[in-house]
């Protein structure tokens, strides 16, 4: 759906008085498979430390929709501290997961990590990482970040985020 169409649809839904800047409208939809939720949820619940992984899927340009089809857990680098507040992806693990995603006929469309001890809002480091990942992976297809908050409440919080340069 084009931005103009989406803007008109939003006006229909929310009322014509809604002030919509078409240049800043959401650039793409995201559809998430429950497999992704299951795997990320399971992974993020297993450790008190932060965990990390990549998301596989593909982007449909016509529909402007990002399909996230599978989650691929990665190993994190060994560290001496608790790792409650940050995590770094193991490079060997990242390479093998990249290969696995390609073998499945998918593309790397995102990354995820957990916030086991606090709200799943992106930190400055997360935003920097997202920027780096987008530069690395996000030139071909959109690239999103996912933060899973597991032990900050009785229920889980999933937060997807994405950054883009303003035109």
């Amino acid at each position, binding site marked *: 759906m084009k931005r103009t169409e989406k803007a008109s649809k939003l006006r229909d839904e929310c009322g014509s008085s809604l002030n919509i800047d078409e240049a800043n409208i959401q650039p793409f939809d*995201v559809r998430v498979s429950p497999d992704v939720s299951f795997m990320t949820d399971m992974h993020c619940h297993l450790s008190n430390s932060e965990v990390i992984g990549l998301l596989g899927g593909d982007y449909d340009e016509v529909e402007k929709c990002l399909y996230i*089809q599978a989650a691929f857990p990665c190993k994190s680098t060994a560290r001496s501290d608790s790792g409650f507040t940050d995590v770094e992806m193991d490079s060997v693990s990242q390479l093998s997961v990249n290969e696995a995603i390609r073998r499945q*006929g998918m593309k790397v469309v995102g990354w995820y990590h957990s916030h086991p001890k606090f709200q799943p809002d992106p930190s400055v480091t997360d935003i920097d990482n997202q920027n780096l990942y987008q530069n690395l992976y996000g030139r071909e297809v959109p690239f999103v970040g996912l933060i899973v908050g597991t032990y900050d409440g009785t229920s889980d919080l999933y937060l997807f985020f994405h950054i883009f340069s303003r035109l």
Partner: protein
Amino acid sequence: MMVRLICIYSFIFSPDSNSIRSGANPSSQSVMRWFHLRAKQEESLTSSSRKRSGASENSDVQYPFMLQVTYRNARKYQSGKNIECFPCCIRQTKVSHFTCNNLDTDLLEIDKKKKELAKDGSKTRFAHDMKLFSSSLGKMSKQSFFDSPPKLICGFISKGDSKVITDETSDSEATRNANTKIEGSCTTICESEYYTYGHIVSEKYQQTGSNQQLALEILQGALGKEGSTRDQEHFSSTYDRGDLAYTRHEYEILNDTSISNDLRASIIWHAVVREQVLDKDLHRENKVPSSSIILERLYNSMYFGDEVVSVLNRKYFLADDDAVIVHGVDAMLHHYMNDANKIDVFKCSNFSFDASSIDATTLSHNCREYYKSAIAEALPTFKLRIGQKIASSLLTWVSHMHLNSHSRLRRPDHVDIALGGVDTCELSSHVEFLGDVMRLLAARWREASEWNGVKIEIARQPKKPGRKSGSGKDSNDPVSPKKRGTKRPAAQEKSGRTTKQSK
């Protein structure tokens, strides 16, 4: 080029007190949220501080982001040219690209550098995994099941092909035959193997046939009809109790549609803990289902196409692409079971769970009373156990995974069954599946504790406030505050005197 970023989630930074975002999840269910960022423009960067107090021009960029959970049966894991990862509408459309055409070149360069940096890391990790594998076999040998651990060979087969190794002594021959058969159907199995918990499973494979159906078969030497008598007896006794055991009341509660996932998860986790930790009879006879048995059960529940290749009579069946999920869960649990920061699933979390919601259901009085007495421990609210919380979260997702996408299938005994429950005692497949996943989790954690010599402690719910101690159990409580308060100084005093005397 340095990109300056500005957050546009104006809920957080908005001066309007009515729109302050607390960050807490307002619902009782897991929710998904959006967080969107954009680079700040040069001119707007300089004027942003001036506009901060008032309503900025950008405040209208607050559209609800479309975030949807898709139906799982839309995707298929297949390699080769005919990719069916996406719905038909997507496959028919031409996926175009953003801007960069040389991404592969860049990635290859980065990959090459990373490989150079970390080439020793993989060797070290492989050696570590091998060490874990060998030690796990040695320590598990005390169980009769592992006197002769069965080899599992896993590969892709074409539709209708199946091969079962019937004799433990003819492992190599059967493996060769199986490989020949698989090669005959244009499928090759790589030599590299994936080590699971006490089993060897060939994981890496390449499928070259375009029309072949993705299939996975587990060939188990000890499960054949002509296998050794001892193994046969052992497996039959194992699989007689293969299902996670629920009481009649628990079945009734689980099958009730009016109960919440939290209640359902509490019963699943209660049954798992009862089986893996609390059942003294099972422990005494060394018959607690190990993680290997549970994993086999999960793999054996795979259903491939029109034929049932499993030799076991299964209560529920999983589709072929569910092997990916099971494999992923197995790999994750295997990795984290020896992790220093792994979560203790048997402990209580800091969050309370309102068990009184059972009264709002349509359950019978007996079931409600059973739940309150046996599971909720007679408290109106109790601390949510970690395992229960995990089960509750996963139950939300697994119920949408369409594990039984086939409407009908034929069981190994050639009886057509309708999936989704033919009698009242049959649970939904996603509940059964989750039960097995949670069993696998608890079994891995239990075995890791046993190897490390750590006793599993099931966290007890706190006592009701206002209950007086001094009679019955409480009077014999060795850690009551009163006793602890008097003993500690005495012990310290004694040790102090001893030290002085020795000097």
